[in-house]
């Protein structure tokens, strides 16, 4: 239809337009006007998601599977509101940590680990390469159709030097190198590239809408017409979801595309690295789904129209978009549609290649080079150049590899199937990333093993079958399984074959991946560096404002060394600029310093991270820094400090209030302590005073006894006094110690089930003689009923004895003892007919040494501690003791609780 020359000149004309847009945008940015800094541009760049697969493939898919093609767009639309949580966090982390790619992101999260970064890079390369190659296929096929040559694979069979696709690939490589590797800083936005991609997004949308309108309204008579014609053909099963397996299919495809929109290297590049402002997300959250809706509106009419119109099978469904303008001789429309497809393909190729080349240079080349000390020393002044050239070379190699893959394999597959296989590869990053930003425990080994296992399953279940189709692997593997083990059939693992081929692979790879990640993380110990990164990632919104200050790093760097390192990558001028910026932000002076402080080292490391990736930056910085191993405790301490500082303001307020309350409490405590102290002093002085009395007697009589001629009668009497006073003293000591034990709570009761009647009788027996000597009447009134109480027998005896002995000292003529049991208590009272206790002294009668202190009353015989101890004993038994007077009778009465459950007497 068209001559090669026309098509080629249009193609290269379009490429030239891209160059112009990119060049113009970069110049404009240099003059301070950044066109890309607009939310709509951001949303459009995200539309790099729609590739040749969307442009040609959706129609093809719809023609065979009906509505199912929509899942790839429903997923991202559904997940868009969640960007506010996930994407915003990833963006913030990446900006703060100067992340340059998705491999860098994962490596950085798990302790800036080189291995992990390398593995992710390799997975991306292997996963994305086929995807890139089908873009070339898309372009080549459309080129061929436009030429009007009928046989689909004739182009692929040409030697490469005659193949236009080869030259297109070279052109794209050139564009990508020019606008993708201008700046050594991988984190720096590629203004020209971004604007070109945004333009491509608009271009492919317009082209698709135009052809859609053409098919729907010019070829047919509107949507209704298309659909009724399809129904007439008996193809109406394509309008609805089909059966049980179809529902699960929709689910898995949506899940898959949700992950793809976040983690595909080109999406990460556009959505995260090229993002200039987090707020742009707000707009993208609705504008991007809207874009997806628009570009899908005409998919069904074109697909169904194609099915109706091209019944002979003269065109593959994947090419219906282009087939219509050609069939209806709309030459200019055909060119437009071709260029639309070209833009969809090139957008993907350019962005993916930039992202991949950054990963290759930062996560493969650099770490490999830096491992070699010799190399590092020899070429350290040219590392910057090496880096940028490695990136340019990898762009060229990736595009050529994609071209080669297209020539060898991709020609045999549809656009969508290869794209989906790539999606599944990329989905393997989901556990490590999502886990990494929300779960601090997520560990490096878990991520690594998860990704590797997921990738292996991906390869076995999804890639191996394509190799069978391409003829590299015998077909028996699919039907008989590996080693003839049927449960190992790649498309029906464990005999599970209900799902589609893609869903099946996704299900097994992702499940294994996630489970391994979780389990290994739970059981593994993070290193301090890893934990540090984990905390920063998960709590990014807490740390992002004060990251330099919250340095988790100990050690010193020689400042000139650090500067040399920066010069190697940045050049003299930019290094000075960067340090200027540091000085300005930190308010620190550098001129008089020989050693760089941790803050500056940290700043430098992040600066380098933006250029060579975090893992390589860590290696480079470590080479000039005398780093001390930092312990987990220290890391935690530092992190806590930062956190504490933040909440300090708030706390200060509450603290001052608490302080006030605390000081009041302290004051009252102090007062009570002082009172306690005073009481203790008084107690001690009283005790010593009480001790002096018997000592005085003992000493006086002892001295008298030393005198020679003492009548025997006197001698015996005095010795008797000495013995009495000695007993008195030891009694006092015993009681003081008793009281002290009760006061301090160290006294233990030896509780036994006891019949109180028996106990009382034992006590009174010993007192009968005393009462008789003093000529006192003693009356006992003990209850009839038998109860059992749980008491310390010796202690309760002591109480009763004390009360009886007190009564005997004061009674005029009689002493009475009564015991009676109520429902809950046993009451024991000891009464006498003495003159009683003066009213005003009653409250103090149970105080220790009350008698001793009260000098106006008749000094009783005894220590003055008996009642105090009795009170303590009763209280220790949960009972009460009190004194009362009625009708000239003074009664001391105490209660002991009777246990609810019956006690058994243990003999």
């Amino acid at each position, binding site marked *: 239809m068209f001559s090669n020359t026309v098509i080629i000149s249009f193609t290269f004309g379009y490429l030239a337009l891209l160059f112009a847009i990119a060049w113009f945008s970069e110049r404009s940015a240099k003059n301070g006007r950044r066109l890309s800094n607009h939310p709509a541009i951001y949303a459009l760049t995200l539309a790099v998601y729609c590739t040749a697969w969307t442009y040609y493939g959706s129609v093809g898919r719809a023609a065979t599977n009906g509505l199912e093609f929509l899942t790839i767009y429903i997923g991202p639309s559904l997940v868009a509101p969640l960007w506010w949580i996930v994407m915003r966090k990833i963006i913030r982390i990446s900006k703060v940590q100067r992340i340059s790619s998705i491999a860098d992101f994962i490596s950085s999260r798990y302790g800036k680990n080189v291995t992990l970064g390398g593995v992710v890079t390799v997975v991306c390369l292997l996963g994305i390469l086929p995807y890139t190659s089908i873009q070339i296929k898309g372009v080549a096929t459309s080129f061929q159709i436009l030429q009007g040559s009928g046989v689909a694979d004739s182009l692929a069979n040409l030697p490469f030097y005659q193949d236009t696709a080869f030259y297109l690939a070279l052109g794209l490589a050139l564009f990508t190198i020019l606008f993708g590797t201008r700046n050594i800083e991988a984190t720096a936005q590629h203004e020209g590239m971004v604007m070109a991609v945004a333009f491509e997004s608009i271009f492919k949308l317009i082209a698709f809408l135009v052809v859609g309108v053409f098919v729907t309204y010019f070829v047919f008579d509107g949507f209704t017409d298309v659909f009724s014609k399809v129904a007439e053909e008996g193809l109406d099963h394509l309008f609805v979801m089909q059966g049980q397996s179809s529902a699960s299919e929709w689910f898995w495809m949506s899940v898959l595309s949700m992950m793809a929109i976040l983690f595909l290297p080109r999406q990460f590049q556009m959505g995260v690295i090229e993002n200039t402002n987090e707020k742009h997300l707000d707009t993208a959250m609705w504008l991007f789904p809207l874009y997806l809706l628009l570009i899908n509106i005409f998919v069904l009419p074109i697909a169904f129209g194609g099915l109706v119109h091209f019944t002979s099978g003269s065109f593959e469904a994947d090419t219906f978009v282009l087939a219509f303008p050609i069939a209806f001789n709309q030459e200019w429309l055909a060119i437009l549609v071709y260029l639309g497809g070209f833009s969809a393909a090139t957008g993907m190729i350019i962005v993916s290649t930039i992202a991949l080349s950054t990963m290759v240079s930062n996560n493969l080349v650099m770490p490999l080079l830096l491992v070699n000390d010799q190399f590092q020393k020899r070429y350290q002044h040219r590392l910057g150049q090496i880096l940028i050239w490695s990136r340019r070379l990898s762009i060229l190699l990736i595009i050529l590899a994609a071209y080669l893959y297209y020539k060898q394999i991709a020609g045999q597959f549809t656009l969508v199937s290869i794209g989906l296989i790539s999606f599944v590869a990329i989905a393997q990053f989901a556990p490590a990333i999502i886990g990494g930003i929300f779960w601090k425990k997520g560990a490096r080994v878990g991520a690594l093993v998860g990704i590797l296992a997921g990738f292996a399953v991906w390869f076995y279940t999804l890639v191996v079958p394509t190799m069978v189709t391409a003829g590299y692997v015998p077909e028996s593997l699919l039907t008989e399984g590996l080693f003839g083990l049927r449960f190992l059939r790649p498309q029906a693992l464990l005999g599970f074959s209900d799902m589609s081929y893609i869903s099946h692979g996704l299900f097994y790879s992702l499940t294994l991946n996630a489970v391994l990640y979780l389990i290994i993380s739970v059981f593994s110990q993070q290193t301090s560096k890893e934990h540090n990164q984990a905390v920063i990632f998960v709590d990014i919104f807490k740390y992002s404002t004060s990251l330099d200050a919250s340095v988790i790093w100990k050690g010193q760097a020689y400042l000139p060394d650090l500067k040399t390192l920066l010069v190697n990558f940045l050049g003299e001028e930019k290094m000075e600029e960067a340090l200027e910026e540091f000085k300005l932000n930190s308010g620190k002076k550098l001129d008089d310093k020989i050693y760089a402080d941790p803050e500056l080292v940290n700043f430098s490391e992040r600066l380098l991270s933006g250029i060579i990736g975090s893992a390589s930056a860590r290696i480079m910085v470590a080479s000039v820094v005398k780093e001390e191993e930092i312990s987990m405790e220290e890391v935690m301490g530092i992190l806590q400090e930062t956190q504490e500082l933040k909440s300090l303001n708030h706390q200060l307020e509450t603290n001052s209030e608490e302080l006030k309350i605390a000081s009041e409490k302290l004051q009252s405590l102090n007062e009570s302590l002082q009172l306690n102290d005073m009481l203790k002093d008084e107690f001690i002085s009283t005790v010593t*005073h009480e001790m002096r*009395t018997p*000592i*005085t007697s003992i*000493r*006086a*009589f002892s001295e*008298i006894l030393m005198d020679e001629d003492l009548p025997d009668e006197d001698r015996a009497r005095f010795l008797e006094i000495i013995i009495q006073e000695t007993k008195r003293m030891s009694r006092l000591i015993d009681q003081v110690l008793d009281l002290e034990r009760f006061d301090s709570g160290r006294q233990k009761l030896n509780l036994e089930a006891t019949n109180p009647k028996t106990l009382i009788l034992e006590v009174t027996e010993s007192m009968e003689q005393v009462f008789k000597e003093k000529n006192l009447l003693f009356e006992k009134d003990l209850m009839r009923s038998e109860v059992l109480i749980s008491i310390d027998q010796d202690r309760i005896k002591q109480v009763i004895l004390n009360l009886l002995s007190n009564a005997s000292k004061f009674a005029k003529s009689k002493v009475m003892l009564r015991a009676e049991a109520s429902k809950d208590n046993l009451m024991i009272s000891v009464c006498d007919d003495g003159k009683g206790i003066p009213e005003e002294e009653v409250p103090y009668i149970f105080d220790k040494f009350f008698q001793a202190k009260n*000098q106006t*009353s008749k000094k009783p015989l005894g220590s003055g501690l008996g009642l105090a101890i009795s009170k303590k004993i009763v209280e220790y038994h949960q009972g009460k003791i009190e004194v009362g007077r009625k009708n000239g009778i003074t009664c001391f009465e105490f209660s002991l609780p009777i246990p609810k459950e019956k006690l058994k007497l243990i003999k």
Partner: protein
Amino acid sequence: MYKILIVDDEPNILLSLEYLFKKEGFKVFIARDGEEALGIISEDEPELVLLDIMMPKVDGYEVCKHIKDQHKNIKVVFLTAKSKQQDVEKGLNLGADLYLTKPFGNKDLVTRVKNLLN
């Protein structure tokens, strides 16, 4: 023969002091509390009173005060277990001639009392 009044509420201490001073040739009066002491003082006019402080009814301080008010020539010797500096000062400020603390050495006590009287 000197007349001495011994005041103490502890019967055994009283007994020992009585024995001691009788043996030294004193005429000894005894009282078990301040009230009893005041009666003996006005009745028997001893030259010296050996006085405990902590006693029922009327304490030693009161007795001392009374003596120094009404019977200036009677010597007062406190003999007490209260040994704090402030108690000593209080006793001496009331005009006591000596302040001795319990427990005491018999010979020492007798010597001091004799010195005071000579």
